[in-house]
């Protein structure tokens, strides 16, 4: 164990002496964590609607005011023709257009049937889908009101209604930040782990100091542990600052689950992750190579982790990729434990899979790290 002590001392000295590196580890990521959640707001609000009312009847006006009173929509234009409204879409001022046809009221009363035209800017699929869905339900409410009004005359009215009462658990104010902060924290820890660990060993290769190590009687696993432990500790430290200071104090996210469980999982995740960084470094000769490879995987890790888009909606083959991505599990666990208070029983599967990753990456890296060529 004695050589390990010297290796650790050396690594810490090198890390803390590097004035350019320290802000990169501690300040920049945490600053991002502080600011990014404000930007990562995917909540669909302010859906801008432009209404073309060709009818100008009491029905069309009632519908318009119902839409504007719903709270989902903002009126960005009330135009006389579809073309005028379409211009608003082109300039991104409107997200959707509702066109009420001529004789809307007349046709409804006479034929009991009429169409409404809705055009949605669907470049942003979520907004389009949700906007369309909201508008749909307002229209069907309106439809029902008219039905009731028109049938007032008939004596034996039997109107059945089903109310849908909705409850939002875990995040009653529907605050998107609560969803994003823990996941961004996970991404930041991942970036630090993979980049720092991957680059560090390759740097020794490129500078040539690794020769001096290889010719010494130092044991392979000591050397690798000497590299892993400092970054493991740094990972935990960055996570802790991010978690307690930014997530808890600034964003007020009070973890519901067991903190010990969360940290145990974090520790496990870091072992797997650093093993991956190590693996990259054993396959690279220069820092540029290590960086290229880790950037490639980092992008895939981020995109396929369910951070921004839901894994359920992916096709099967993509779900398979998502499930061989260690970051997926960590984001899942951090969201479950922090936001929903999930316990050990709920994340057993995640734990076993992460142990698998940790063993796989580290064994592979140790086998592939050669002191002799």
């Amino acid at each position: 164990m004695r050589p390990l002590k010297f290796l650790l001392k050396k690594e810490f000295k090198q890390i803390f002496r590097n004035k350019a590196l320290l802000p990169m580890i501690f300040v920049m990521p945490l600053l991002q964590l502080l600011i990014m959640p404000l930007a990562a707001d995917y909540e669909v609000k302010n859906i801008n609607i432009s209404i073309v009312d060709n009818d100008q009847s009491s029905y069309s006006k009632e519908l318009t005011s119902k839409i504007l009173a719903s709270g989902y929509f903002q009126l960005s234009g009330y135009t006389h023709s579809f073309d005028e409204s379409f211009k608003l879409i082109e300039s991104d001022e409107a997200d959707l257009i509702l066109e009420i046809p001529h004789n809307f009221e007349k046709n409804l009363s006479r034929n009991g049937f009429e169409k409404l035209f809705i055009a949605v800017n669907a470049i942003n699929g979520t907004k389009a889908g949700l906007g369309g869905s909201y508008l749909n339900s307002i229209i069907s409410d309106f439809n029902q009101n008219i039905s009731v009004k028109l049938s007032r005359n008939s004596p034996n009215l039997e109107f059945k209604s089903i109310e849908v009462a909705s409850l939002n658990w875990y995040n009653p104010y529907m605050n998107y930040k609560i969803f994003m902060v823990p996941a961004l924290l996970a991404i930041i820890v991942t970036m630090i782990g993979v980049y720092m660990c991957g680059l560090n060993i390759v740097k020794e290769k490129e500078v040539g100091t690794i020769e001096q190590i290889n010719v010494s009687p130092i044991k392979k696993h000591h050397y690798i542990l000497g590299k892993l432990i400092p970054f493991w500790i740094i990972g935990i430290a960055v996570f802790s600052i991010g978690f307690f200071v930014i997530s808890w104090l600034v964003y007020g996210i009070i973890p519901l689950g067991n903190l010990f469980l969360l940290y145990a999982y974090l520790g496990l995740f870091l072992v797997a992750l650093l093993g991956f960084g190590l693996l990259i470094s054993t396959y690279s000769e220069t820092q540029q190579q290590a960086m290229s490879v880790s950037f490639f995987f980092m992008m895939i890790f981020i995109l396929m982790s369910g951070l921004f888009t839901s894994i359920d909606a992916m096709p099967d083959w993509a779900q398979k990729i998502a499930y061989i991505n260690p970051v997926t599990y960590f984001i899942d666990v951090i969201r479950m434990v922090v936001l929903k208070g999930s316990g050990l029983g709920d994340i057993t599967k995640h734990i076993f899979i992460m142990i698998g990753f940790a063993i796989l990456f580290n064994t592979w890296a140790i086998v592939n790290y050669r002191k002799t060529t």
Partner: protein
Amino acid sequence: MEQLIIFIKKEFKHVFRDNKTLLMLFGLPIAQIILFGFALTNEIKNSKIVVCDYAQDISSIQITERISTSKNFEIKKTIFDKEQIEASFQEGDVKLVVVFPANFHKDLYHFNIAQIQVIADASDPNTAATLTSYINNIVKGYQQELNAPSIGSIKIVPEIRMLYNPELKGSTNFVPGVMALVLLLVCVLMTSVSIVKEKEKGTMEVLLVSPMNPFTVIIAKAIPYFFLSLINLTVILVMSIYLLDMPMNGSMLLLYFVSGILILCALSLGLLISNVTKTQETAMLITLMGMLLPVIMFSGFMFPLENMPAPLQIVANIVPSKWYYIIVKSIMIKGLGIMSIWKEVLILSLMTTGLLIVSLKNFNIRLQ
């Protein structure tokens, strides 16, 4: 001139000899296009839900059936006890629980009013809102049919047209974003690292004492990456048009012209970073840790800019990829010409000029 060509050849050799660099340069955009095109959607489908059915009568079963036939939902299981709801959520993958109270059918037919409770896992608020509104629509539809016989069939049929993106594909939104992301980051990374590497190894001094003008050295460094980025752009465009059926409604020439400006902008930024850093490690970390997330966030393709607080919307304005993203969307999807986007192009050009001047000046100072 001849010197310049020799030098450019050397740079190309550096890049093409290293298959790992090639992986990032070309593998990354290709992988991203495939992922964004086929794997990532903002669409919500097959969401797992749980039905908590205290009623178990004809009405509750009919509604449950309607929910299960919708492509948006997959009923994971039916439970009969509210106590199990929390546990279902904690297991992780359940997004929503629909609760039918006891006597649901009786209430509906005797009192003409009945209630359904929808409990959503709002830790992901968007999915929660969307799923709740889907359930709402299903229930409304059911209710309308129920009432049709007694109150006559007045029917408003909304006809929805999805403009630009009829299939609601995520790629329409993402591809321009990937172009912005890849062109900017890869280019900044490659330029800054290749210059700092020469500094670190001492070969930069060899070049600077050579009879070549220092600016020739910089231009020679920039040209290969400029062309590599154009090739990269072409790869992305070909893939997204032929593989993802992305529309190309505007002028290709205009698109290349604007992309050229963005690449130039990235090269200047790369030069600037290389001026202020001493080691490759620092240059890489500035780009990867410092720029990756902001570029993803502030370009506007992942998160709508209008949702951000005002100060951040202002910050987003200094991210070149934001402007590029708007331009690409306008050209490719909306088919707009230079007259509609001259403002954005102008801003991007000014930004590029500014960065170029600052970085060259900085480089010059360092020489003295």
